[in-house]
Structures are given as structure tokens and as C-alpha cells.
């Protein structure tokens, strides 16, 4: 299971659910504590999209290995993309690559090899800007995700199961999203059940947590609910995660607390990944 090749012939679907409620204005308790949670969310999501584009490029062409759906939930539940991608339910990775809102020039600190930190310029593509307005209709967002996944599965029954990635600061206020997440996890292709992963962005200064295998020790009830909603990392993803030196075990779930989740996409194999690529 979870071994279906991901290729043009058998693309994978990722559905991103982005919390855009008013509480996302509050400060982010993670490594970027000077930011709001909404800004932390967009940095993480834009980085994941960038990583997916890079993985689908071979230098000359963009291979449509991935299709993406982005749903924002706050004032309403609707497409989380804007600009020329606004309103599109599912887009190919090639459309994503060619339709950024803008590409920002930023700087990051990197070691110069002698132990000194130096500012290094880099380009950051932006597809999603921070939004923080309204309630948290997470249940409705999961319902829309389910409606997107169902027809995808009937058209791609041999493919890698769809993956839902929900990024939120916590509590739904339109009912229980857990049961809908459970319904999604029951949808399946011949390669396995659909996967639900959650990233919890909190204002709490608790230490970041990645892919925990137990509920004990999670800092609050929202984190515990999102842990319960999250699928176990399938064996092939665990193997890649271990090879990349992540501390994961049999019960590790696709859940992170105040942490990046770029790695989640990297855990999915699309072919030869050199051991010495770094």
C-alpha cells in the first residue's frame, strides 16, 4: 500500500485547507514568533508549494505529478488562491508554477563555512497572502475537501491516495470536523486510504512537535483533536522520513505542532532521490 508510482500517468492530489479566521492575527508561537499565525501559515504553505514545483521540475519541463486544491476557511469557505488562479478548484503543478502572485527577494542567514552567519539572498514565490477574518468553519472545509476527493478517486482508482493537509490554529466553530475527517480517511484507491494530515499553528510557546506517535504530552485540547484527526504515516513515508533522519516510529502521525511541514511532501517518493543530495 502507498506504493503507487506518482507520475504524469498517475498524479497525486493534495488538498490544502487553510484557516483564515480572525484568531490567525494573533502572534505565532513557533520559530517565527515576530509573525502572526496567518503570516506563519502563508510562509509554510508557500514553501511547500515551492518545494512541490521544484520536485516536479527536471530543469526543462514541469511534470504534472501533482494536482492541488486550496480551500480557505474564515469569512466563508472558498478557493484559497487568488490572482489568475482565483476560484479554480483543482490546478496542476504546472499551473501553480506559472501563476505566482509575485516572487519576493528575501534574505536568510546561512553559515559561510567558517562558522560565521552571512545574509544570503533568495527568491520566495508567493501564491497565498495572509488572511485573518471571520469564524473557523473547519467542518465545512473538510466537507468541501471530501467533495473534491470523491470524484478524483473514481477517476484515479490505481493512483496514490489523495492527501488533505489542514493548517489551523485550532477550534472549529461550525460543528465537529473529526467525523468528516474520518469519512475522508475511509475513501480509498487501490493503493490505500486517503490521508489527512494536520499542522497546528499555536500562539503557545510550547516546543515544536513533529510527527508524534502518542497523544500524551500534546499541549492542549485542539492539538489533541488534530492529532486524532491525523492519519498514521504510511510505511513507505516512514522509511523516507527515517532515511532523512527524522525521529519517527510505527505510530507516528501526519501531525505537526508549531512547525514546518515541508518534509511531509518530501516523504513521498516520486523516483530516485540521491542519498547525497542533502
Amino acid at each position, binding site marked *: 500500500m502507498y506504493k503507487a508510482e506518482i507520475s504524469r500517468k498517475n498524479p497525486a492530489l493534495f488538498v490544502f485547507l487553510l484557516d483564515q479566521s480572525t484568531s490567525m492575527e494573533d502572534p505565532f508561537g513557533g520559530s517565527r514568533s515576530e509573525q502572526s499565525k496567518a503570516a506563519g501559515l502563508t510562509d509554510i504553505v508557500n514553501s511547500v508549494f515551492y518545494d512541490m514545483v521544484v520536485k516536479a521540475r527536471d*530543469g526543462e519541463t514541469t511534470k504534472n505529478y501533482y494536482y492541488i486544491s486550496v480551500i480557505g476557511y474564515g469569512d466563508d469557505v472558498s478557493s484559497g488562491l487568488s490572482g489568475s488562479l482565483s476560484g479554480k478548484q483543482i490546478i496542476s503543478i504546472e499551473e501553480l508554477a506559472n501563476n505566482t502572485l509575485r516572487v519576493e527577494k528575501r534574505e536568510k542567514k546561512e553559515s559561510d563555512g567558517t562558522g560565521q552567519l552571512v545574509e544570503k539572498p533568495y527568491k520566495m514565490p508567493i501564491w497565498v497572502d495572509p488572511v485573518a477574518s471571520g469564524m473557523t468553519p473547519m467542518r465545512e472545509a473538510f466537507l468541501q475537501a471530501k467533495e473534491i476527493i470523491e470524484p478524483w478517486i473514481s477517476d484515479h482508482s490505481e493512483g496514490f491516495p489523495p492527501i488533505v493537509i489542514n493548517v489551523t490554529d485550532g477550534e472549529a466553530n461550525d460543528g465537529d470536523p473529526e467525523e468528516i475527517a474520518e469519512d475522508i480517511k475511509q475513501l480509498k484507491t487501490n493503493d490505500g486510504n486517503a490521508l489527512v494530515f494536520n499542522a497546528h499553528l499555536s500562539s503557545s510557546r510550547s516546543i515544536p512537535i513533529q510527527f508524534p506517535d502518542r497523544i500524551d504530552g500534546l499541549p492542549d485540547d485542539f492539538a489533541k483533536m488534530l492529532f486524532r484527526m491525523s492519519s498514521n504515516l504510511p510505511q513507505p513515508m516512514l522509511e523516507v522520513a527515517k532515511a532523512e533522519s527524522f525521529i519517527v516510529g510505527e505510530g507516528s502521525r501526519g501531525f505537526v505542532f508549531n512547525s514546518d511541514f515541508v518534509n511531509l511532501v518530501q516523504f513521498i517518493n516520486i*523516483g530516485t*532521490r*540521491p542519498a547525497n543530495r542533502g
Partner: protein
Amino acid sequence: MISIKFQTLAVQKDGNTVDEYQDASTTNTIKYDGALEIYAAVADGATDSYFAGIWARMLTRAFSKGAIETIDDLQRQLGCLSERWHNVVTRKPLNWYDEEGVEKGAFATLCGVKISLHGDNANSGVFKATAIGDSCLIQVRKEKLINMFPINCSSEFGNNPWLISSNLKSNQRLLDHYKLCQGDWQSGDCFIIMTDAIAQWFLHEFENELRPWDVLFQLSIAVNCHQAFIDWVSEMRNSKKMKNDDTTVIIIKMGC
């Protein structure tokens, strides 16, 4: 002079175009002072890297010119090859999304063999094979497989082999991953060099006490051998006996 027949058969990953094929293969013969050296190499550009097909072609060409016969040669040549790769891929301005990928570089396997013949009437000689990564060499003699290099078992193939990079920083442990195999050949021997998908199929068949070389010999002498190979690979992929990947094989028959 002993007759030597080469046949290279290749097909791209299903779903990709011919232009997106990222394996490479080269054969060459070099004559000097009454001796003949035969070079043949395959390389497999990694999916998860940039302009890997160009890098794979550079590696096989360098090998087949006799430029990388030893680990010292390889280490000496990598600087020049890396610079050439960089010049080729940056000839046109890069898109923003390619800058990081080009910085990380291209990665490829390399498996090559040099077969030496001394004198016009040579009916035997020696060979030297080198490999980095999971492309393989097989030697068959009198219907028996007598050499498997560098992988001996179909379960040893994975998705994370250590590869040769155009980014020199990624080659720091090259010596640890460089494999060498030397031996002799006799008239009637056959060498088969393969990239990983077909090599894994080959070893799996052999482990099941079949003779996969016979299948490849038949394909190599088919009337339209290239189309026959494409059809056969498609059949193997559909029956899940072979991974869907760029697939390349060189068959060298010594004195057949």
C-alpha cells in the same frame, strides 16, 4: 579479428516524452599499438534532480573516451565536467523556480566497462568495470551468469542510491561509493550493462532460476529490435514485473 557486436536498447519512462529520457549510454572502440579497447557505459539521471539527462550523457561520454578509468581520473574530471554542465544549463536565463535546483545540481549513476583485446587474433582478454550507484554489469559465459556488479540481489535496489553530482560539494564521499570489478573474458562471453529498472527485473528473474539474458539476446536480434524492446518493456511494466522508469541496456557479444 574477433567479431564484437554491440546493441543498445532504450525507452523512456511511460508517461514521459522521448525528450524527457534521462538515462544515457555510450559505446566506443579505441585502437592503438595493435591493441583494441572497447568502452561501454550507462548512466541514470536521478528523477529528483535538475538537467540530469545532460549530466548522465556527459558522464558516459567521458567514460567511453577513456577519461575516467580510475577513481583518480573521475575525481580529476569532475571539476571540468561540472563546469561544462553548468555552462550548458545556464546558457538560457533560468526561471526563478529552477535557480535552487540548478544550485543543488544534477545527479546520475555511472556503470562502465573497458574490455581489452591484445592483438588481432585475441580470443580472450581482461575487463575492468567501475560503478557508482545502482546501474549494473552482468557477464554471461556458456549460458551461466558469472559476474554481477555492483549489485548482487534484486532486493538491494532502493530509491536513495549515492550518485555522482555536478555539484562538487555533494561528491565528498565519492571514494566510499566507488566500486571496481576486474576479470577476464573469453570468446563467446556476453556483457550486459543496464540501468536499475531492467537490472532489478534481470536479477529477480535470475533468482527465480530463469535465464533473463536469453530474453535480452532474442530482443537484440529481432528484426525491429528497438520497437520489440519498447513493446516488451511496456508488457513488463503493465504486469508489474518492471518498475516504470527510463530503461536502458547495452549488450556486448564477444566473438558471436
